[in-house]
């Protein structure tokens, strides 16, 4: 199947809400139909081709080009196919996603993969806050799936996540894993403060030392078996987790006692 290629031709002057930029929407549409789909420039209803040149049709493989930092909700709720973005994107990338893959060669803003259920999101640049998180009032954040951000991340990464994996390559800000209920967050370059605050269950793995909250207690040195399995899976995505006892070990902290929760924070301590 050929690709649908959209190139930004006019920079939006206010945020552009474009949840139609999704394989599910475009898969069965002709080029003309894609061009005429509605996007929201602020409150104005405009056509896709007011902002994009559109090549191709009837495909669930989308390629987007341009500085899309004002374009929000790309891949919202998508269940299949692929979106590749050459450029940066705005908020809510892949929010409520149910399947398929998104790859961004650039930065993404807040709420990447918020409340997603399945699928893979990979951002090669920096991410914003609330990655894989639950929106205000929701009891659960992401239910499953994988989010990988090569660069840095903002506040509240993985807030209330229930299952799934988030990997952050660069440093993350405060409240990583806030109220986490399950799943795994891997921090390759650590995080600022309050990591794992109010977590109930789930695992946060950091390869560099972390500032640990007073309501976490040190348990032991420990390299859980599941890490090896995990490490192999992540290897396929190009991420390496050390788990050879010869290289070092993980320090296990458990908490958050304020809940009281049974979450685990594992901090790598190289030999």
């Amino acid at each position: 199947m050929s690709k649908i290629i959209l190139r930004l031709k006019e920079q939006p002057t206010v945020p552009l809400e474009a949840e139609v930029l999704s394989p599910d929407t475009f898969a069965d549409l002709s080029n003309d139909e894609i061009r005429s789909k509605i996007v929201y420039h602020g409150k104005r209803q405009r056509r896709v081709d007011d902002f994009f040149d559109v090549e191709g049709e009837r495909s669930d493989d989308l390629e987007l080009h341009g500085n899309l930092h004002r374009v929000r909700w790309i891949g919202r709720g998508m269940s299949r196919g692929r979106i590749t973005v050459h450029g940066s994107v705005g908020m809510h990338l892949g929010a409520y996603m149910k399947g398929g893959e998104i790859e961004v060669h650039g930065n993404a803003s807040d709420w990447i993969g918020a409340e997603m259920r399945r699928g893979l999101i990979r951002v090669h640049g920096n991410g914003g806050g609330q990655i894989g998180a639950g929106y205000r009032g929701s009891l659960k954040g992401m239910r499953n799936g994988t989010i990988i951000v090569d660069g840095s991340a903002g506040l509240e990464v993985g807030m209330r996540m229930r299952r799934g994996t988030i990997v952050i390559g660069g440093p993350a800000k405060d409240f990583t894993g806030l109220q986490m209920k399950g799943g795994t967050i891997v921090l390759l370059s650590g995080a600022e403060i309050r990591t794992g605050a109010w977590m109930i269950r789930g695992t946060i793995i950091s390869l560099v030392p972390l500032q640990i909250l007073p309501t976490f207690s040190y348990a032991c040195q420990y390299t859980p078996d599941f890490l090896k399995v995990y490490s192999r899976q992540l290897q396929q995505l190009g991420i390496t987790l050390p788990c050879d006892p010869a290289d070092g070990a993980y320090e296990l902290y458990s908490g958050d006692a304020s809940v009281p929760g049974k979450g685990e924070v594992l901090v790598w301590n190289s030999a």
Partner: protein
Amino acid sequence: MLRITGGKVYDPANGIDGEVRELCVSDGKFVSAVESGRTIDATGMIVFPGGVDVHTHVAGGAINFARAMTPEDHRRTQAFIRSQTRRSGLGGMAPTTFATGYLYAGMGWTTVNEAAVPVLSARHTHEELGDIPIVDKSTLVLMANNEIVLDLLENGEYERAKNIVAWYIWAAKSYGVKAVNPGGVAAWKWGKDAKQLTSSIEGYSKLTPGDIILQLARICDDLGLPHPMHLHCNNLGAPGNISTTLDTLQHLEGHRAHIAHSQYHAYGGDDWDEMRSETAQLAEYFNTHPNITTDAGAVLFGDTVTITADGPWQHLLYKLTGRKWGNLDIENETGCGIVPYTYRPSNLVNAIQWSVGLELLLLIKNPWQVFLSTDHPNGGCFWRYPEIIQLLMCADFRKECLKKLPDKIKQRITLPEIVREYTLYEIATAMSAGPARALGLHQKGNLGVGCDADVVIYEHDDDVARMFGHPRYVIKGGEVVIEEGEIRATPDGREFIIKPHYDPGTEQFLQPLFEDCYTMAFENYPVEMERLENPDIRDCVPNL
């Protein structure tokens, strides 16, 4: 002017049961004939008086607290889109004010009674009611935990208490009295509850919940309030509470009363594991005491947010669910709790509650005594009433639903044995004529000449829930507000209030007591008439 011709009319207030009649409307009221204006051909259609909700929570501090607590529900619910002339809104468990009006009118309800107003925030409630379009409204003030009233009752000062209740009703620009868990909310302020009708209340030496109930019922009767005391009994929601409920009813012997959401008060068994339905006993009491009315407080499976002045119950529910909890205590008068909740058919307790609500509606024989309600939003949202109508009218559908419940439930409920099916006439009584009469709103729920022209017209549909959920026309005060599923007009509704008589010395007596326990100026406490949009003062004839 408007004429509705050819429809089969169900008008229980006038004993009309499905006869083809012509209705004529002029100046918002039914008249015997009109000479011009639009004619709606309702041939083959079903014509009802507009629905009347005797017990709902749609405006004020508590529901507004619930709105703040449930943004996740606002996101997933139906949204009303802004038009050039019509405000936007969100439906769901705790709808916004504008959506509340659209949703009620959208299913043919044209009058609603907000059943729990603390006097202290009555000003707020009226502001919200002013933003609920289309429907007419009335309110009840919370009295059974007002410490000034309780102190007077403790000291046997009945006359003083009566005057003060009357003053409070007028200060709040309200329509009647609501008693919630008498004495229990006052006790909750110390983290306690009042479960025994004849034990004295925490903080009082001899006053019991039973005393409060009896005295307040007397006060409502003596003041001649159009609606009797509206009572939320003690021990709500607890297994075995049937004994409290029957005790309460016996205390009331000889007085008028409306028992709110009786579904929550008809349980047997000593604990949650043993809980069972005791609707037969309760229905029997209603069947032999025509002076008492009730609303079902039926439960529907699904998500909702529970919100009640019954703080102790709410804290229990929070502990049971471990989800979110809001609580708001209001000085001298009341408190309220807010807990989002999901009723599940797989949960035995929830399944029993679902059954109990329907059993009461089916076992209480006289539809003039038991009315449709979910105690919105507690048992389910008001916009799901058509689902209850379907359950009442279709025994086969009930059977289907019963199959989804846990097996264990069979010995605990009586619903499977009930074969009764409501007729359209009975539905019209339980959703409109009955509650209107119980509220003393004689111009409502009545298609007779001189009454308010609130009409709902349905196109016959074998799918009962769809038929009642999507009326063909809704007419409010003579104006077509809903037509073919679209909102055509959003006129302002009226607010019914009363001014019961009180002794002119009441304020002088009350002011120092007020200043002791309140934090606002006495003079700023009463809601001014001009704060109400379209007030309508109803008669109140005291029993001397």
